[in-house]
């Protein structure tokens, strides 16, 4: 199973993970990441799905999608959702 480097912002980590920001998670897709984090911190999955934009290896996805694929060593950042004009 590939392993992803997962990062949360300080705001999310303060609110939901007791300050922990970095995780190594075995995951083939973003679904696996969200599931694993939700298992560690029940309820976090829904926050991540609804409150974040996700960057996978620098590529920004406005809406996290279960279908987004990860490779071994993928960098995943959950960042606050962005809004345009």
């Amino acid at each position, binding site marked *: 199973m590939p392993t992803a480097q997962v990062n949360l912002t300080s705001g999310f980590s303060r609110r939901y993970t007791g300050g922990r920001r970095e995780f190594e998670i075995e995951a083939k897709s973003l679904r696996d990441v969200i599931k694993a984090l939700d298992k560690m911190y029940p309820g976090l999955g829904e926050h991540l799905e609804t*409150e974040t934009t996700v960057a996978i290896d620098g*590529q920004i996805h406005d809406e996290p999608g279960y279908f987004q694929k990860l490779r071994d060593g993928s960098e995943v950042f959950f960042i606050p959702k962005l*809004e*345009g004009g």
Partner: protein
Amino acid sequence: MNDVAPSRYKFVGTRPIRPDGVPKVTGRAMYAADMAMPGALYGKIVRSPHAHARIKSINTEKAKALPGVRAVITGADFPDHKFEYIGPERVAVNFWHVSRNVMAKEKALYEGHAVAAIAAISKEVAEEAEALIEIEYEVLPHAIDVDEAMKEDAPLLFEDMITRGIEPPPTKPSNISKKLEFAIGDVEKGFAEADVVVEKDFKTAAVHQGYIEPHACSVRMDADGQGEIWSSSQGHFVVRALTAKLLDIPVGNLRAIPAEIGGGFGGKTVVYVEPVAAMLSKKTGRPVKITMSRDEVFKATGPTSGASMTVKMGVKKDGTITAAQGVFKFQAGAFPGSPVMNGCLCAFAPYEIENQHTVGYDVVCNRPKSAAYRAPGSPISAFAVESVLDICAKKIGMDPVELRLKNAAKPGTPMIYGPKLAHGGYIETLEAVKNHPEYKKPLGPNQGRGVASGYWFNGGGESSATIQVNADGTITVATGSVDVGGSRASMALMAAETFGVPYENVRAIVADTSSVGYTHVTGGSRVTFATGTAVVDAAKKAIDELRARAAMIWDVDVDAVVWEEGAAKPASSNVGDFKPMPLKELAGKAAVTGGPITTAASVNAGGQAPGFATQFCDVEVDPETGKVTILRFVAAQDVGTAIHPSYVEGQIQGGVVQGIGWAPSEEYIYNQRGQLDNAGFLDYRCPVASDLPMIEALMVEVPNPTHPYGAKGVGEVNICPPMAAIANAIDNAIGRRLTELPMSPPKIRAALDHAAD
């Protein structure tokens, strides 16, 4: 204008005539205010004359008794919503706030705040009824300026507002809704390494999006609970969702039909009139139409934030930026939600700087609630950052473009919001400016040249499209994206390219909420990227179906059929001796091969590339009057692939024009009573044609590999550099650094009366 490199595409990159042009120039296009529902009542919103007042009582009895009045409503008629922030941090919606912005309950929080609404048989009756509504206000002290609103003794808009984002939470309420902080590296270490450190304070004014078409809607709520909304917006799905939520009715009971839009620029991504018309319609059983006046648009719809900022940057003599720090305080207006987070994230994004720190404050004040405006937040922080960079360049004796090139962000550059930048394009815009023949041209007396850059994320997300192959082989493309900047043309071009048929054979429309899948707003420069991806996906599905139909006709396996240049062809000579079957022929056999060919695609598009822009302008300052004349404006922007280059140039020019307005003239001017003194285009000075030079749009094409045709968002980043470019040019012309927008003639005269820094 520049012609982009020869295209590898047949239709993408061409400049066909816009499909919405004829109805618009002949006055036949249907805007929201043109809609006339049978039996419609005139809807009028009654607004607070006070900047800040407690609503002690509202007596509507006399107004209701007036003949011709069918309903009078107040905030009490709308369902209560729980006080909770729902959804994303930046765009978290608190419906307790949203409902009160649509119609005040306990307090009026700005001049123009809706406090009641009337449905009557005519405008005259509605105006007579307005005079009969008795409202008892307790006028309260107000706070307009962001620095004033942040003071400890400032009048509080919400007596229980505790700043979010501070641990432990403050014990005392304030007008600071939220504090945000982002950092990478160690700024103190970075500043210690610098040879030159520059720190400056800046202020920007609140400015309105300035769309020509005021907000308008017609709403019919029927006795069975279903309803229709016709309105002008940047997203009818969002209009439907917000109206349903505010009235507590199922989303599926509403159908929202998009009108043509006369400009939005972010300001029409929220609702003001639709829920009010819906409630009035519900009460009266009649359709209700509401059209805002220009006065109402200025006083009651969202401008973008004014701001107070401090930016500090350190550079080495060789031009390396060692550290950058910014404190950004944004007016949110009467309810939380300024674009300060975007300001913090975009501020230093064009640059690879090891040590960065930004702090943002979202501050409520007695102004209309801010709304999105073209790259919301980014132009504000860019004004400060790009001005400071210009000072740094002068101090180390380096050309401002060279300084930016030295530090330009590129793929792999760590960004302050966490990930590494995945896309390039910035360096190419700098090179385009550097190599422009006018960039090094000498200037005359009182003339100056200024350079600035900008960054914007661009957007992706949820979009839907359907494709119909008509019986004669023409194609109809329906999407859920309101066409603000030419998306019907670009959707048709991408569909034509995918099918391999002429552009003229493809017509694109904007479908209502019941006729196409969910599509997020036309905003964030997301439509060409996200909705375009949906269109291409739907077209590919249609091509697969067309191949299957040809296979059926030829009695071969579908894999033996390929699609090339608008026709089904055998994959090889082994398949059989079949002549290519064009789309028209296949469409004519649709019935016998399985019925109409209709496909749909919905996407959650990701991997959008950000936008980078670099611009330079030449100005001349009249030292007697302080008037600034812009002599030349050159705007380079990475546009990915220009799907329809004329529209792309239009976006670049439009963004620059709005920036040119923001720089020397546009501002909300409040009097001592907290009332807006310039709520009209006569006194709120947008630039007109005679204020503008020819704006030269330099399209730099660095295709986005995550889009089928390489598209990047092009609508917003162009508004980020102009204010700083003009400030830098003024400084270059007269040796005075203007740090407050607007840089109006009196301020320039005052600067000339003082010694230079």
